[in-house]
């Protein structure tokens, strides 16, 4: 079965049905390893103490927030350029998941910042860029919810996603520049001066676990979205069927 066969929603549903249990198992296994590494194996940082454990959540969430927008960008190209039938399903399903991980990145960053900087928020380049990304996610979700027809909504969202993808490097660059202009007195580099291998391994383990989690959630959400569209078309058909029945009965 070639990848293109998955463009058929029914085949995709069957594929999802078969693959999901394996993905769930893989995710749970990966988290078991990752959490064990992060919570028990990783040593305390000489500078940050045990709060470095927050990084094992914060960095994977940041990575996923950006990865998700990248995935939606590819889906957007699928909608606008290749007219792939499932592209906008993939995009719509991904947005809330990406937004949730971006939010988690901001929250864990805040929890990390409070012991380190003394405030819950610091307008430093990285956190600020992620905040802007979060606002863009919310705007995208609002756009999805503001158009009733899935096809039109998909195309509008695809355009916004592409615009966002082009703009995100620009935003990151300008926020970096803005931040160097206003260099705060105490510069705290997230992650410390260099990352030791004993920290890197748990970090990768958690990153893999979170990525598997994302893929599992995304696949399941895509399945739900396909079902939702089926419901919608069946309800519309039922209206026509009822209307037909009424015409038939009135003629009988």
């Amino acid at each position: 079965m070639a990848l293109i066969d998955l463009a058929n929603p029914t085949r995709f549903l069957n594929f999802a049905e078969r693959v999901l249990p394996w993905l769930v198992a893989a995710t749970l296994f990966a988290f078991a390893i990752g959490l064990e590494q992060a919570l028990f194996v990783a040593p305390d940082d000489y500078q940050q103490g045990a709060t470095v454990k927050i990084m094992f959540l914060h960095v994977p969430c940041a990575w996923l927030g950006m990865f998700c927008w990248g995935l939606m960008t590819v889906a957007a190209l699928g909608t606008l350029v290749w007219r792939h039938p499932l592209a906008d399903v993939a995009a719509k399903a991904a947005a809330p998941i990406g937004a949730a991980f971006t939010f988690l990145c901001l929250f864990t960053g805040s929890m990390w910042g409070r012991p380190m900087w003394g405030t819950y928020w610091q307008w430093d380049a990285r956190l600020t860029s992620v905040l802007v990304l979060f606002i863009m996610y919310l705007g995208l979700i609002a756009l999805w919810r503001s158009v009733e027809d899935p096809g039109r909504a998909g195309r509008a969202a695809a355009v916004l996603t592409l615009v966002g993808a082009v703009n995100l490097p620009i935003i990151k660059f300008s926020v970096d520049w803005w931040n160097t202009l206003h260099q705060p007195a105490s510069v705290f580099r997230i992650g410390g001066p260099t990352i030791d291998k004993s920290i890197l391994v748990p970090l990768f383990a958690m990153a893999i676990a979170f990525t598997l989690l994302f893929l599992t959630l995304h696949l399941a959400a895509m399945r739900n979205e396909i079902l939702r569209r089926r419901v919608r078309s069946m309800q519309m058909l039922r209206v026509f069927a009822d209307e037909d029945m009424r015409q038939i009965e009135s003629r009988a």
Partner: protein
Amino acid sequence: MTALWAILLRDMRIAVRIGGGALMGVLFFLAVVTLIPFAIGPDQALLRKIGPAILWLGALLASLLGLDRLFAADHEDGALDLILMGAAPLELTVAAKGLAHWITTGLPLVLAVPVLGLLLDLDALAIGAVALTLLAGTPALTFIGMIGAALAVALRRGGLLLPVLVLPLTVPVLIFGVSAAETAVIGPVTFGTPFLILCALTLMSLVIGPFAAAATLRQGLD
């Protein structure tokens, strides 16, 4: 009374549906609060000092943004004409719509203040003061705003007319709102003085707004 209750519930339900835009105000609030440090710089001390003002400005602009939803949608699909012909007094009906609008647009802004206050490094006292003054002041913003919304409803290319009409009217609310929020933290005047004036402004607007809006709608749509 059931008619008013029905209008209240209907408006609230529409606000949370597709195109209703109930939570868009909060998103705009967040966007404005994020934008200001880009213009001013990330100096925490400065942001903390003007934090209450930033939050009040953001809430005011976000309230303004949602005002055209008050009458425009009903005008477009003809529901406004039905409301005008209804048995319930127009003033009360309009007030019910205003209440629904505040609950779905203004109140979420108040609830967003703790989170946004953290972005501006405000302490708990300042956040509480801003939230309380916004709670007292956002109804005024809605009910004063409805006058402009009624004026603009019949205009197809209203555009920026509505904000331009409403902004001067909201100046007293802004002044006393920010004043109250800041005196809670810094003094020298006691919190009560500007806060009570703010409450008085709100109570006045609860009366003047519906009457003026109703009169406008009757004039404009006859």
